[in-house]
């Protein structure tokens, strides 16, 4: 069972109290973008075995969207952080580096 702490209300929420929102930190490409950019926005995902960044919503609780950094292989959670950001905060990156020294995910490391 996956347990994520909601960064807004501090509740240690069981997976069944949350809704999964897919991969995090996508940049939206809309009208005016190239076909490659739009395809990437719609379909191209990291889907890694290991360190991953996801969006979750505390849907049965406070209703807010947040981010989670976790390992898809071990289910270990490195941390959660609010949605109002384009990249993971430094303390989350540090928490990952402590456990997975050479991690890379898209442009983050």
């Amino acid at each position, binding site marked *: 069972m996956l347990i994520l702490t909601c960064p*807004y*209300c*501090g*509740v*240690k*929420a*069981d997976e*069944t*109290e949350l809704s999964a929102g897919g991969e995090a930190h996508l940049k939206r490409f809309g009208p005016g973008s190239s076909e490659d950019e739009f395809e990437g926005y719609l379909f191209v995902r990291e889907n890694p075995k290991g360190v991953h960044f996801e969006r979750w919503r505390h849907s*049965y*609780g*406070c*209703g*807010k969207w947040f981010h989670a950094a976790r390992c898809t292989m071990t289910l270990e959670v490195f941390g959660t952080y609010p949605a109002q950001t384009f990249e993971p905060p430094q303390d989350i990156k540090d928490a990952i580096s402590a456990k997975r020294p050479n991690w890379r995910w898209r442009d983050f490391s």
Partner: protein
Amino acid sequence: MSELAKVTRLALRGMITFRGDVSSARVKKAIKAATGAAVPKVRSISGNRDGGVAWMSPDELLLMVPYGDVQNIIADLSKALVNDHVLIADVSDARAVFRVEGVEAAQVLARVCPVDLHKDSFDIGEIRRTRMAQVAAAFWRDETGFEVICFRSVADYVEALLQRAAQATPVGALGGR
């Protein structure tokens, strides 16, 4: 089979959803004047049945007041906050309220919610919004039990669910209280 707790459906209660900047001094003052209760801290509930305020999310409160006072309170609040970006909605008829009473009341909720209900983790004065079996609900604890609120559209389901969960014997970590 014994009864762990007594489950009762209560009468409709006056409930007002408030959304806005709940950290603003003007909002805090208006809420206090309207309900008699202060804006609570994160995950907390303040006041009592005749005037209570529950923290619902970083920008949402649930005001609980006598059913008959709702329209007057909404009018007062709207007037006090006419220049603020807020939402004030009467949701009294959209909610159902239950009481789960008895020393084993936490057992009943623990069966249907993914929540640590041990006193050290969830004490009097806290409110928890969560999943209750298949629907959304919220509850808080008092000296003799819990009050549970849910959408009125699923009230019959929640009533049956709680009644069924109350018919059992204590088990697990909460067994010894």
